[in-house]
């Protein structure tokens, strides 16, 4: 009979209507400005720069190699390489970006800059509260606005950050070992050099 399905449907909507007053679980909406849900781990919108330690200028991982700038498809990254070198978080002197700007009104969130970065210095952010009343300066993020600590990165992408940290630590250890072995080799070579240098010197008077 006509109307059977209608009655069934109306029972369903009535159940939802009264159910939404009874159980809070039914309500799927989040009252946005007051309460915010954490973004899921795979979320991404715009890139940010990772720094180690507490000081964003000193701990900046970026060495201004400009690969991301060259790879960026919409050309939204602008980097100016520094003339001098500053020690990075490991104490090694490195170049650093004097200027690092990303125009997020141009950025298309493709993540290519993240893929190509050999230093794990640029990662994708999840912050979506980016609306501004200044459409030029407000959307052109400078170095300071782009810098986020490694702790922040660990918070928004835990799995990814752990992998990156492990990789970096391994690399650091390897470099340290390499440096150590290099130092040892150098020391040994020097020692050999001195002995070989000494021998003819000692033999010369003969």
């Amino acid at each position: 009979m006509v109307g059977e399905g209608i009655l069934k449907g109306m029972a369903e909507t009535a159940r939802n209507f009264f159910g939404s007053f009874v159980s809070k679980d039914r309500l799927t909406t989040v009252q946005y400005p007051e309460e915010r849900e954490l973004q899921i781990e795979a979320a991404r919108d715009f890139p940010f720069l990772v720094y180690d330690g507490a000081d964003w200028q000193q701990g900046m991982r970026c060495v201004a190699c400009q690969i991301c700038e060259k790879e960026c498809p919409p050309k939204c990254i602008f980097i100016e390489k520094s003339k001098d070198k500053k020690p990075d978080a490991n104490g090694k002197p490195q170049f650093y970006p004097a200027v690092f700007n990303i125009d997020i009104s141009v950025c298309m969130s493709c993540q290519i800059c993240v893929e190509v970065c050999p230093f794990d210095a640029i990662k994708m952010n999840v912050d979506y509260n980016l609306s501004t009343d200044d459409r030029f300066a407000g959307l052109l993020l400078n170095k300071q606005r782009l810098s986020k600590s490694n702790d922040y990165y660990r918070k928004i992408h835990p799995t990814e950050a752990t992998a990156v940290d492990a990789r970096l630590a391994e690399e650091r250890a390897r470099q340290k070992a390499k440096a150590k072995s290099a130092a040892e080799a150098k020391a040994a070579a020097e020692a050999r050099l001195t002995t070989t240098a000494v021998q003819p010197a000692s033999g010369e008077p003969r």
Partner: protein
Amino acid sequence: MTHLAQLAQELDQIFVLAAHWLLSYLPAALQPLCSAILSVAAIIIVFATLFALTTWLERKGLGRMQNRYGPNRVGPFGMLQPIADGVKSLTKEDIVPITADHAVHFLAPVLLVTASFMDYAVLPIGRNMVLVNLNAGVLFFFAIGSMMELAVFMAGWSSRSKYTLLGAMRAIAQMISYEVPLVLASIVVIMQAGSLSTVSIVNMQATYSGIWPHWFVFTPWGFAGFVLFMVAATAESNRSPFDLPEGESEIIAGYYTEYSGFKFALFFLGEYIGMFATSGMAITLFLGGWSAPFSFLTWVPSYVWFFAKLLAIISVFIWIRGTLPRLRMDQLMNLAWEFMLPMTLLNLLTAGIWHFMPAGSSRWLVCSTMVVVPCILLSRGLKHRKKFQVRTYHYSE
């Protein structure tokens, strides 16, 4: 006891008495005119307020049916949302297409709102509370109701846009198709009451046997007539599931695509006011108008009952809107001509048989069968005529 009864009666007539008291200060020559102005102003204010309340209720209700909160930012529980919407639509730019017929484009919303408010002239809102007691009140109501079609077509035609024209065409086809069952469904009441005056129709229903009222909805033909009337009224007021003329997903907003700002708000208002008017007519014809549902509740003022019934019908409208998807054009037409029309015609016959059969259970049995059996058969006919075939379009090759 008599004191209490008198108090109840005075409360019932409080608006009538207040109007009389106000008018008594005026010279006799001005009294009829001022009385009319006063009543019209009251109708406009009350029903415009009801419109504001309904938009809020609708958004809240629909939200809850979809497990959302609905508006909750402006005022307590979002109750001031209609005011915010009004301010917004008033401050918006009024855009008129360059090629539009400016005069008709301007007149269409005005006519729609005027026509829908004119419907209230014959609706008895309470005991002795009717603007004019026309002896052809029901006829007047339907005549004015068909003016809305004119307004809709004026809007669609004058905008010079394909969407508005399509929407207007759809609206005209739909409204004229459903006007037929709407009027035919109400004829049963006129047959029984023997009057076209809305006041006497309500007076007939405001009597009681035991505690039960003599509402026409409590008879087989009255119930069928009420359901058919409400379905046709839903289609008349272009509400979901019959909102094809608007069809947001297909033709943007139908005949009012090219309207913005306050003219758009006027269309919105006109549609809701028209919906209240047809609901009010359904109440008048089938649900006993302002009469109380039980004889022991007659002390409650009559206008309270009218508005309670109106709000109940509005809630059902909202409920239906939250439940049903939009019909397709052919489904809409099939429902009107192949189900509604035969049902209303058969209902006329049922009402006649009810009138001439002696009162008792045999008349109930015969008339109920006459309503239920055709309904089942006709709905089966609607269901089983599905022809599946490969669709070929003339221009597709």
